[in-house]
């Protein structure tokens, strides 16, 4: 049956909106929970009340965000079944496993401990509470690991093979799925980005208090923690982002070429286009400002390997589509005559290209009927949206370098104890608040929009993965999401601003009612 293109478009739109929305909350949870763990560790080691109050105050904001993260996360799990049923059936054997393990190993722990984090202060010992916070932090990052193992497999589907009897992909080596280099690179890059975002959140709001002269000691300490953690995280985002770039160039050559707007293969070592205006119609990039060698080094870790351009990759795709049609034909033959040795041999030789034949399903029911013009059309469809990727990537990278600089300067000023005297820096920190969100969302665009037209790279085209639902049904749910998500965004923002404005002083958390413990006690706690 021919797939309704409206359903495809609407389902993709809905998935993108809900994923981008979910990803507003996830990185903050990932980052701030480690900052809480660091602050609480200092509290347990020194016994100084201010650190406990810091954990409690930032914990309130964490709690508001966490609720939104949980609420919008359920949508992601539901949606694979609701809107991507053929996808769910086609890859559930492989893709579902990391999701289930995420629940068992990480999310269960995280969700069970989060309540105790809030209400446990008077019910369990200091050390027990610290352990709760640490396990909470560990579990959130572990959760990200398993989600990115699943996502990494979509980008680089290792450890699996097509089974014609069950019409789906099945696991051949779970170790390969787990130790997928793309998944590993994406995991460290993504959690580091979350740590940067969490740090910026604490940094910006603390800077606001300092600008107002409120909660001064509280805010300075918070900024120091945020700047140190943020600097380490920002460095790791860029370095590990580069690692992620290398992994992409190894297995998603088209995505790499699109990010670079590299229309033709360049002689090695390829140059990096710092700036330019990609022209999709004429397959060229105007006003390109190129830095020699850099792309070759990032993409191939060498100076003698070329990076293939878009034109070459489209030619490759044509060859793979032709092979895929052979595999598709053999599969249909085997369905009638399951002992046909010749068909078995053809399928075994070309089943890796089956997905390329499925690209034709957007245009026709039976890929075997494809004309050379259809094949050209399908091959052209493997080019993702070049200008969007080109710009999203550059903006994201620019943000990344800016974060390193900002955190470094704040860290330097904090170590000189000059933070409250540098008002320009405090203002800069305050106004930088939205940037990590922008960078994180752009990162999602580069990774997932850049994966198009594939749901699973080279295996299953996105258009084929949709459910057999009607456009009306998807309109209904999409409208519902827009309505409810907008309302929740307003409520979330209002509450966040309300509690950030109230601040530790307004919430009665600072200054503490009881005096700070005398120095001797502090020394005793610190084990001096």
């Amino acid at each position, binding site marked *: 049956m021919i797939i309704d293109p409206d359903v495809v478009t609407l389902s993709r739109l809905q998935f993108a909106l809900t994923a981008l929305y979910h990803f507003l909350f996830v990185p903050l949870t990932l980052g701030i929970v480690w900052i809480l763990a660091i602050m609480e560790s200092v509290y347990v080691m020194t016994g100084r009340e201010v650190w406990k109050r810091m954990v409690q105050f930032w914990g309130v904001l964490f709690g508001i965000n966490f609720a939104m993260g949980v*609420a919008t996360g359920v949508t992601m799990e539901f949606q694979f079944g609701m809107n991507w049923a053929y996808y769910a059936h086609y890859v559930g054997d492989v893709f579902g496993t990391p999701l289930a393990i995420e629940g068992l190993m990480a999310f269960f722990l995280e969700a069970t401990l989060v309540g105790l984090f809030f209400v446990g202060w008077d019910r369990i010992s200091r050390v027990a509470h610290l352990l709760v916070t640490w396990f909470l932090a560990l579990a959130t990052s572990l959760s990200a690991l398993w989600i990115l193992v699943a996502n990494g497999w979509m980008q680089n589907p290792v450890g699996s093979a097509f089974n014609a009897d*069950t*019409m789906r992909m099945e696991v051949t080596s779970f170790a390969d799925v787990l130790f997928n280099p793309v998944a590993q690179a994406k995991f460290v890059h993504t959690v580091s980005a979350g740590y940067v975002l969490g740090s910026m959140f604490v940094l910006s709001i603390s800077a606001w208090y300092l600008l107002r002269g409120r909660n001064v000691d509280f805010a300075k300490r918070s900024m120091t923690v945020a700047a140190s953690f943020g600097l380490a995280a920002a460095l790791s985002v860029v370095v590990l982002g580069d690692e992620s770039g290398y992994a992409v160039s190894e297995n998603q050559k088209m995505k790499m070429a699109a990010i670079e707007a590299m229309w033709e293969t360049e002689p090695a070592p390829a140059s990096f286009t710092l700036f330019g205006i990609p022209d999709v119609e004429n397959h060229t990039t105007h006003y390109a400002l190129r830095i020699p060698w850099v792309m070759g080094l990032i993409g191939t870790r060498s100076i003698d390997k070329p990076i293939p351009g878009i034109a070459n990759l489209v030619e490759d795709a044509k060859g793979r589509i032709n092979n895929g049609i052979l595999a598709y034909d053999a599969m249909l033959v085997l369905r009638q005559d399951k002992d046909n040795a010749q068909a078995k041999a053809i399928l075994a030789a070309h089943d890796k290209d089956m997905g390329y034949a499925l690209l034709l399903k957007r245009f026709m029911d039976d890929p075997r009927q494809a004309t050379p013009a259809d094949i050209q059309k399908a091959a052209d469809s493997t080019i993702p949206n070049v200008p969007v990727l080109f710009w999203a990537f550059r903006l994201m990278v620019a943000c990344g370098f800016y974060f390193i600089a900002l955190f470094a300067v704040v860290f330097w000023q904090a170590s000189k104890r000059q933070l409250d005297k540098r008002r320009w820096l405090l203002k800069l920190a305050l106004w930088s608040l939205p940037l990590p969100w922008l960078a994180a969302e752009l990162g999602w665009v580069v990774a997932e929009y850049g994966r198009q037209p594939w749901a699973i790279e080279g295996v299953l085209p996105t258009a084929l993965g949709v459910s057999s639902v009607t456009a009306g049904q998807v309109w209904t749910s999409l409208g519902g999401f827009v309505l409810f998500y907008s309302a929740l965004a307003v409520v979330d923002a209002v509450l966040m601003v309300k*509690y950030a404005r109230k601040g530790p002083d307004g919430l009665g958390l600072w200054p503490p009612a009881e005096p700070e413990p005398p120095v001797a006690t502090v020394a005793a706690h610190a084990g001096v």
Partner: protein
Amino acid sequence: MFDYESLRVIWWALLGILLIGFAVMDGFDFGIAALLRVLGRSDDERLVLLETIEPTWEGNQVWFILGGGAAFAAWPALYAVSFSGMYLAIFLVLLAFILRPVGFNFRGKVRDARWRSLWDWVLTASGVVVMLISGVAFGNLFLGVPFQFDDNLRMSWHGSFFELLHPFALLAGLVSLAMLLAHGACWAAYRADHVVADRAVRVARWTTLAYAVCFVLAGIWLAYGVAGYAIVGPVVTDGVSNPLHKQVAHGSSWFASYMQYPWFWLAPVLAFAGAIGVQLSVGRKNLACFIASSLMVAGTILSAGFALFPFLLPSRLDPRSSLTIWDASSSQGTLGLMLAMVVIFIPLIIIYTGWVYRVLRGRVTLDHVRQSGHGY
């Protein structure tokens, strides 16, 4: 280690265990949410009710998330067909799952009667919607749902949202609603301040009774008014997971599996024993009462699962496309690996969940919430 047939049976059991885990652990959260305005007459009383579940509902909900994830991984066809087929019904459930966490968290964040009343209604609605629709969905499994596969195993569904509202399915929805309201009331009787608990005792009595009546009626209707499905011809239990390789007849009895395996009768017996246990212990031995209502919930789900055996999702449109435990599972390797994960992690989950509940034990009193202001 295990052969394919055993793994499929084990994963069928695990699906049931996860579902029971969800219904027992999160069911009372939904029950409390739905009864919030009935049991709690003032804001303080509602705070008491909410505080009995606030620190733990999040962990409880993971039984559901995990159930979904495990269905995706172990029964991909079941997950794909049911979620896409019952699209709008599932979307309503999803909305409830989106609004509930924010409701719990945001309600206490503003001291304003209208704000809190709004979220109380949201929580009530989320509870009722999930309890009712889960039951209606279960009811539809017995009626068979209108889907079929093509040769490439692409599923198509030929029915509307309103067709799901068959009277039998609605009755199943009532079973689920009454059962989980009773379960929530038993929790309130166990953990809430006596003022609230006394009201909960009365609610628990009536809802358990309503549950028992609906459950019996549903059983009778199933025996005399709903035709069952049966696999025709040889049953291949370790074949490839392709539903189209079998023949299915519609017209047998859903009690056939009870005749084949008489020990299945223990499930409805357990459900009734639980209901009777609630009536005997409610208001007197509150922990025992909560355990009894948990057994009632478990017994009910087992009764339904056993009747369906070996079907997961029968198709009335094209019975051959029906999903059974023998042809809708993941590959043997995936089932084995996931089993290993379950064996390692479920005991750990039970241990740390048990610890958290132990830390938080005891009644939540009105005095306590008046002192602490709002939840968190």
